[in-house]
């Protein structure tokens, strides 16, 4: 019991950090996702008012004159945004240094997480200044630094510049910044810092929509990463690849065209994947698999995507966001291959794993849309509550109408909805899937009729469902009966369908099975929560100490007993003797 209190604190601490981690990553996903999925981006433009403000908050760094705009977005009278940002970036260098020194990836992650907050304040000038202060003109990193400066359009900034500019602005932050800066210059910048600055450059270029330049620079950066073999670079490399493929996707011939750079970077990504697997570099592995899947799906290479999935193993302990994306792409592949049950499973997991905060809304929406269509294809009717969520309502509107048509089994409505919203569905990439729904609509229609009428003529069915002829209706109904959609018989001579009495569901094993499923889900949840519990690092040592003490005590006791026993033995001996 006394061990309870100390062990609680670190758990909470860890939990808190975890929570922040997710939140921060979300911030990043927001930017990524919003731009990552073109359709989402368009979605945001077309639909929800709640969302339109969101992306606008995502890329405010678009504004190159960050200084002015910054003050009102921040809304707080901080010392000086420029100096503050520079300090932030520099403090990340410290994190990276520690990460390398202690070989602890957590510090790298911390630095990466801060990108999202730096991003809003980042301008080419700030970055140029940091680069200039980090690299000495003669250092090994200088050529690379030059490339970065080139990329952000400040090629005339000379390296190794002293902090003169900063001096004029403010004296207080300069003191701190100056010290760290001076220290940095004393020693060579480590490759992690190079790459980190490279990522910042990528972010900057991406926000400034300089796609072409960003792509060229990313290629340089990727090459540089490939030439380095440092485990501390892993999570940074994952990020670099992410932006690399993002730029590739947005460069001139857009993805569906086979000339798009998104296609031509595949060999690079595959090579990166191979290296990552060999080095057990989980971050890069997860990121690159997701990027490759995305690339394949963007050009509709379904079989390649399928092969990739079957020949690789997605790392189990990948970051949550990567898992969510992976599941989404996997679900999409499976849906196209008509493996709806699997697709449903993956997509449900994806929507659940998607960050719940508003910033990854685009992903949730896209995943939910696909999930809805898959549910319909499986013959289920999605939950009404899905459409009521305020963040989803507008975006899901066409799908809502679609579900209504399918639920009622009204073929006419169904066709008009498809025609009306064809563009939306096409943009969402669900159009071909939705076209497959036609048969489901017919089936539902037949089921509704079978439930409402005990006997109905084929002619009426034909009219209701707008089928071509009675013959067609007959075949369709016969197929529905065989597929177990309805319980009925056909009478050919008189030309009607006679429904069988509907059995009592509660007499079957159905309720028992449903109950069992739920219980099982709860138990699995319990098991998983137990497994997911985290215990503080050094707790076992404490316990070990306790155990050791206990053992010592035991030993003492044993000794005593032994002595006692000896006495007893002696006594026994005495007794025997007596």
């Amino acid at each position, binding site marked *: 019991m006394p061990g309870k209190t100390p062990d609680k604190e670190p758990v909470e601490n860890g939990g808190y950090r975890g929570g922040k981690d997710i939140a921060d990553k979300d911030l990043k996903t927001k930017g990524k996702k919003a731009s990552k999925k073109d359709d989402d981006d368009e979605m945001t433009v077309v639909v929800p008012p709640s969302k339109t403000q969101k992306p606008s908050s995502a890329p405010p760094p678009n504004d190159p004159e960050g200084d002015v705009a910054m003050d009102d977005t921040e809304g707080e009278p901080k010392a000086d945004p420029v100096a503050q940002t520079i300090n932030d970036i520099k403090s990340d260098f410290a994190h990276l240094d520690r990460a390398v020194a202690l070989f602890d990836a957590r510090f790298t992650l911390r630095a990466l997480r801060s990108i999202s907050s730096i991003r809003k304040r980042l301008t080419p000038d700030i970055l140029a200044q940091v680069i200039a202060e980090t690299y000495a003109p003669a250092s090994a990193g200088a050529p690379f630094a030059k490339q970065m400066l080139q990329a952000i359009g400040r090629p005339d900034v000379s390296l190794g510049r002293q902090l003169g500019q900063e001096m004029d602005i403010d004296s207080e932050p300069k003191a701190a910044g100056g010290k760290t800066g001076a220290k940095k210059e004393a020693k060579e910048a480590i490759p992690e810092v190079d790459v980190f600055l490279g990522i910042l450059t990528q972010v900057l270029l991406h926000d400034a929509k300089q796609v072409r330049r960003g792509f060229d620079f990313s290629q340089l950066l990727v090459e540089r990463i490939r030439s380095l073999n440092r485990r501390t670079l892993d999570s940074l490399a994952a990020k670099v690849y992410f932006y690399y493929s993002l730029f590739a996707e947005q460069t001139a011939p857009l993805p569906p065209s086979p000339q798009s750079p998104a296609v031509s970077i595949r060999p690079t990504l595959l090579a990166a994947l191979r290296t990552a697997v060999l080095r057990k570099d989980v971050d890069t592995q997860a990121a690159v698999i997701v990027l490759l899947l995305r690339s394949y799906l963007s050009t509709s290479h379904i079989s390649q995507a399928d092969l990739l999935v079957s020949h690789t193993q997605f790392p189990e302990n990948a970051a949550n966001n990567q898992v969510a994306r992976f599941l989404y792409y996997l679900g999409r592949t499976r849906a196209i291959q008509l493996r709806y049950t699997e697709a449903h499973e993956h997509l449900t997991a994806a929507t659940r794993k998607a960050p719940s905060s508003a910033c990854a809304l685009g992903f949730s929406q896209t995943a939910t849309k696909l999930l809805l269509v898959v549910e319909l294809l499986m013959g289920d009717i999605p939950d009404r509550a899905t459409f009521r969520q305020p963040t989803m309502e507008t975006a899901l509107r066409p799908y809502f109408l679609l579900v209504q048509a399918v639920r009622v089994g009204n073929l006419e409505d169904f066709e008009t909805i498809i025609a009306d919203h064809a563009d939306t569905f096409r943009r969402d990439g669900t159009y071909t899937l939705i076209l497959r729904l036609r048969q489901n609509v017919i089936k539902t229609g037949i089921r509704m009729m079978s439930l409402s009428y005990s006997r109905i003529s084929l002619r009426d069915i034909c009219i209701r469902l707008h089928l071509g002829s009675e013959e067609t209706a007959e075949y*369709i109904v016969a*197929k529905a009966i065989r597929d177990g959609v309805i319980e009925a018989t056909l009478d050919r001579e008189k030309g009607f369908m006679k429904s069988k009495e509907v059995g009592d569901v509660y007499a079957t094993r159905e309720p028992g099975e449903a109950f069992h499923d739920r219980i099982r889900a709860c138990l699995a949840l319990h098991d998983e929560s137990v497994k997911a519990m985290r215990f503080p690092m050094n707790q076992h040592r404490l316990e070990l100490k306790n155990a050791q003490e206990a053992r010592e005590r035991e030993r003492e006791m044993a000794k005593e007993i032994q002595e006692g026993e000896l006495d007893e033995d002696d006594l026994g001996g005495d007794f025997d003797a007596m």
Partner: protein
Amino acid sequence: MADRELATLLARLKSSSAALPYPETTALLSRAKLLLLQLNALTPSPTSPPALLALARDIYEQGALASIRNRDAPGFTRYVAQLRPFYELQRHGGGGGRDDGERNKITGLYLLLLLTQGLYGEFHSELEALAGEGGLDEVEGDRYLGYPIRLERWLMEGSYDRVWKAMKRGEVPCEEFGVFSEILTSQIRSEIASSSERAYPSLPLASTKSLLFLDSEGAVVEFARTRGWAVRDGTIYFPDAAGASAAGETADKEKELSLMVVENTLGYARQLETIV
């Protein structure tokens, strides 16, 4: 030298492949492939000259069509696989300009093949790729590609009569597509038969004939025998599979149900123990 010989081979294949017996065609084709190998154009690369690419593609196309005519499905699948990089390369803008060759025809045939083999997953993957590059409406409007797509939709719906009509009344886009009609006919016939077994208690022979698209009542009786249906006084009685086994099943079911309940409850108890 080799390419000129190739061109003559191709001309011969094109002009007379329908009349030529299959072994002879394959002999010609393998010679052509050897020549291609010499010219280093067996598999396409962006550097090979466009004229040669077009030549190689035409050879493969002829091979694909020949194998379809002779009902050689694995051979056809191989040719399609070989043709795919050519088509991909072509869309890169590399070779041949906008000359698509027989691309749609081959792809349509391939789709139909997948359909007859029941490989719906592959069918839809292929379709998705087509829709991805050229818009679905355009694909559906195409003479060769639209046909298998429509067939698939009708098959899924169960509008067998439409499939039947599409196969009969000269709606088949070209003779190679007709090859599949036979396979499809027997396929939908067995589909209809299995649905009828469940849907009707009994059927008069005359209506069964039209239902199954058979030519005579004799054929119906023949067909009924293969499916194991009883024919009495001009009426077919379907074996009442569900009814017969239902009585015996209920008792079994009852037992099974209670067993399941016991098992589950025991499981819950055990799990509860671990929690508490």
